[in-house]
């Protein structure tokens, strides 16, 4: 099958629309769904915000946001001050269910040491506390990639580790928020099924880059898709 939307529509004539491609029946109303390719001319936070649905969030210090001028490298979030936390979200417009939603995204970190990256769903994009959160975590306090989740304020939040070591390579991640658990798949393999510390409130897409030293640290994201199930 041709791996482009035009080709899909040609090959699968039963799917004359994207609506049909992503819904099993015309008798059901499609749920919230978006996808982002992170490709374009954005050279700053303001131009990125103008060309996309995302907003930037300088949780601590001011980050740098821009498309990467390289093949297959997507969008860059750069934090250059020790303790800086730089994020993108939906300006706290929360359209995704904590118990029936999916996020699929491709993400990499450009460095490993003293560098934390998180991406997935989060209630509040203006802080880095993980209440009502379900994010994949690559953080320097853990050896492996993990699933960091938390319920509402005042309840525990924590990371569950996978058996995949932290690195600086691109990975494909899938977070599935279900009614009984949250699943994290890394590169197509389910690595974590978590039944505790799960979010309660509605959430938004969220990507956070954080540096723990004065050296600049960068997270790149190339694709983000989210939908309710």
């Amino acid at each position, binding site marked *: 099958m041709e*791996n*482009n*939307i*035009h080709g*899909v529509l040609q090959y699968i004539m039963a799917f004359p629309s*994207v609506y049909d*491609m*992503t*819904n*099993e029946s015309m008798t059901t109303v499609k749920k919230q*769904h978006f*996808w982002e*390719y992170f*490709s*374009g*001319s*954005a*050279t700053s936070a303001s*131009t990125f915000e*103008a*060309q*996309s649905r995302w907003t930037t969030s300088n949780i601590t210090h001011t980050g740098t946001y821009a*498309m*990467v*001028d*390289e*093949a*297959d*490298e*997507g969008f860059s979030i750069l934090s250059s001050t020790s303790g800086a936390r730089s994020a993108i979200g939906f300006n706290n417009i929360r359209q995704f269910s904590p118990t029936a939603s*999916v996020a*699929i995204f*491709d993400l990499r970190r450009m460095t490993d040491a003293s560098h934390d990256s998180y991406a997935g769903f989060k209630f509040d994009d203006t802080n880095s506390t993980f209440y009502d959160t379900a994010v994949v975590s690559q953080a320097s306090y853990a050896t492996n990639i993990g699933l960091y989740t938390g319920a509402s304020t005042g309840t525990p939040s924590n990371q569950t580790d996978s058996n995949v070591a932290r690195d600086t390579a*691109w*990975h*494909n991640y*899938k977070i599935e928020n279900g009614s009984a658990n949250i699943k994290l*798949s890394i*590169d*197509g*393999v389910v690595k974590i099924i978590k039944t505790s510390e799960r979010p309660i409130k509605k959430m938004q897409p969220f990507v956070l880059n954080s540096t723990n030293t004065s050296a600049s640290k960068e997270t790149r994201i*190339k*694709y983000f*898709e989210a*939908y309710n*199930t």
Partner: protein
Amino acid sequence: MTDSIYDQLNAYGTVAKQRVVENFSGSAFDTDRWENGFGANCTPTMGYNGTEGVSFVTNGTSNAIYMAGFDNKCQYNPQGFRYISTCKKNNDDLGIRSGIGDTDSAAASGHLAMMSEGSFVSSRALTTNNGGSYVDTFATTGGGTVPLSQTEFMFDIVGTPSSITLTFDGALQITKTTALPTSKCQPLMYTQDRGTPAVKSWRTIYMECYNT
């Protein structure tokens, strides 16, 4: 059946390559995603004269130009890409190129692979450059050419390390193995008023570009 666009476009669990899809539908051409790298006196207009997509409309000034690009954010590999789009011109004396190139800030890209229509060429061509001069290659399939026309058509450019092909309306017409670009590129849509200045336009209703 999957609810995910991602899973329908990529092998499950693999990291996708760069992609962009434009439907050119809305209240205005997205000049935040696209920038006019150089040129003036030509305006991208949605729904021009009640037509579909975005039209690039010259204003009657001599040498009116619009170069839509990604501000030289070059995320596409000329040796492994695909560019699918549509074209319909409304005046024969208009130069049109659409594809990928390494610069939107000058009249000429050092590296590019673009479909050429209009008075730039004598028949529809695949125009490429590998750091030298533009090389127009015309269809030889069936021993003929693909004539210029004002009929709407879709085209599909596919780049590999050894060749670039150009397909019109589903029929492969040009396969090119020389003057292949090697520098990373961005999507480009170029418009130039030629001949007697006038209000002229061409439109596109879709553009998809991705690395393979």
